[in-house]
């Protein structure tokens, strides 16, 4: 009997889990590689078991979906069909030019210095996304955190970043973050959203096609009302104040063009600002494998295949759209992979429901994107002495000079001229801001490795090998 085909899934969030389960149920041996200690990704992040939470569902959503995924994973792990490698940080993936094999390289162990290599017949990239935060004066002060970061720390460790919190920026994530922080006992002083309710109304027909999503939004709005959270639409934080840490923010109202209205600013005392301006996909591994990107997203076909043979992608990596879309895409990818690895052409009729959900949810998230775009006037509010690249402490003035008198006209040149994007995070935090301030096109950075790798790991032959 022929050996079972082997799939590596990178990422154990909604897309990765759905893909791993769909493939495993169809006779594929799966290695699920994830950086976290427990499955679920950011969306299904759980309190650490050592915290003894009886009601783990409290800071969470879609508990029943989670239970189904978790039970499926447990079942397949018990039979050995799925191997789940936790605390494994993938730093590179490569396709063997001489065969059809794909190799995934990870760092394991408490100190992330132990190299682990996984070789398989196909790979599903379910690498998720991360939050975009555009700079403003004071955004590097301790006490300023990303909205998603505040939520992750609350979900995983059951801690609050402070007592009096302003949630600000733009995007659908701000609602659950504000509601979650308020329900956990924080005083949420304001929810500051730069988008206008009128823009939402203009997209009403598309949004109304997703009644479940609208009900979810209404549920968060009701919780905010119950906790007395003040909502300030078409407002933005123009400055965070404090010396050693945050003590207040200045909030201003915006006109239709995204400019601050004269006289429309006021100060709100707070010890925490949770801020975010939408999300960006993680595309490093796809990029190193040679997959074509479409804008910031990994380009996939109707089966979730990238244009590199043996490489599939699903979830936020192929375009930010939320957990429900990630589940649908992962499910389709897993079925496609199973059929292809068994040498069959898949029958799309078998995933028709998931394909319909995918189409609906992509249309929905495109409509949300158009509503929740950062206000066009944001660059004007970034003073020259504001740090833009947090790692290398490059200011907006440095970026403007490099793009102006020094003639830098693309992100790579600006990086070489200013060091913006050359630090630890490799430009993940600053690239959208550098692009916005300089007028350069925003292109995802080409990074040789998806995370810092100890020289010792690069210098030694592959460690523990899992074939």
């Amino acid at each position, binding site marked *: 009997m022929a050996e079972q085909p082997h799939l590596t899934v990178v990422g154990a969030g909604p897309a990765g889990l759905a893909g791993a389960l769909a493939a495993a149920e169809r006779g594929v041996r799966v290695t699920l590689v994830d950086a976290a200690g427990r499955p679920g990704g950011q969306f299904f992040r759980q309190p650490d078991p050592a915290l003894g939470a009886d009601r783990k569902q409290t800071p969470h959503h879609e508990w029943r979906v989670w239970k189904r995924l978790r039970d499926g994973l447990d079942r397949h792990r018990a039979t050995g069909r799925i191997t789940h490698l936790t605390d494994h940080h993938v730093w590179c993936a490569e396709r063997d030019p001489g065969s059809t094999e794909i190799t995934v390289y990870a760092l394991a162990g408490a100190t992330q210095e132990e190299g682990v290599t996984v070789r398989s017949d196909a790979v599903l990239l379910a690498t998720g996304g991360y939050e975009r935060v555009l700079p403003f004066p004071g955004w590097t002060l301790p*006490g*300023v955190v990303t909205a998603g970061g505040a939520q992750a720390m609350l979900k995983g460790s*059951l801690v609050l*970043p402070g007592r009096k919190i302003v949630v600000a920026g733009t995007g659908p994530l701000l609602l659950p973050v504000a509601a979650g922080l308020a329900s956990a006992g924080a005083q949420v002083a304001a929810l500051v959203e730069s988008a206008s309710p009128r823009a939402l109304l203009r997209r009403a027909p598309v949004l109304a096609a997703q009644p479940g999503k609208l009900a979810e939004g209404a549920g968060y709005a009701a919780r905010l009302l119950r906790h007395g959270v003040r909502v300030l639409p078409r407002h933005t934080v123009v400055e965070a104040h404090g010396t050693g*840490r945050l003590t207040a923010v200045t909030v201003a109202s915006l006109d239709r063009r995204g400019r601050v209205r004269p006289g429309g600013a006021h100060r709100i005392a707070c010890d925490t600002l949770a801020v975010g301006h939408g999300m960006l996909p993680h595309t490093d591994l796809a990029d190193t494998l040679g997959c074509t990107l479409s804008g910031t997203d990994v380009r996939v076909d109707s089966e979730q295949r990238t244009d590199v043979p043996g490489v599939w992608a699903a979830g936020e990596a192929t375009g930010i759209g939320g957990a429900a879309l990630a589940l649908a895409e992962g499910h389709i990818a897993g079925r496609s992979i199973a059929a292809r690895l068994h040498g069959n052409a898949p029958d799309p009729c078998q995933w028709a429901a998931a394909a319909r959900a995918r189409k609906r949810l992509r249309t929905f998230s495109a409509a949300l994107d158009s509503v929740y775009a950062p206000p066009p006037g944001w660059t004007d509010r970034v003073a020259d002495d504001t740090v833009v690249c947090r790692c290398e402490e490059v200011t907006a003035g440095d970026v403007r000079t490099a793009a102006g008198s020094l003639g830098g006209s693309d992100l790579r040149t600006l990086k070489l001229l200013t060091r913006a994007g050359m630090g630890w995070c490799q430009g993940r935090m600053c690239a959208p801001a550098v692009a916005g301030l300089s007028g350069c096109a925003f292109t995802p950075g080409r990074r040789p490795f998806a995370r810092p790798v100890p020289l010792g790991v690069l210098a030694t032959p592959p460690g523990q090998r899992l074939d």
Partner: protein
Amino acid sequence: MNPLEPARARPGKAFTITFDGRPLGARSGQTVAAALWTAGVTAWRSTRGTGRPRGVFCGIGVCFDCLVTVNDRPNQRACLVPVRPGDVIRTQEGTGREHG
């Protein structure tokens, strides 16, 4: 109300860690960052260039702003590293290599 209550969490007994020599209580299941947040500490790094204070920013291991020295190992991401009894946490100055 604290965030443990709505989740009906019953964490294990608190243990002691030190932050810059000061004893702090911490619990299993927390990251270093969560333990410091619980103790009201929000800054534990000063930047290499201008010596500005920093703490957690992204909270999920992407931004590297929360780097800290744990048991004499510099450059650990406080948002990812689980806290252990007796951990010696120190504010990381610059690259963290000068004193170590």
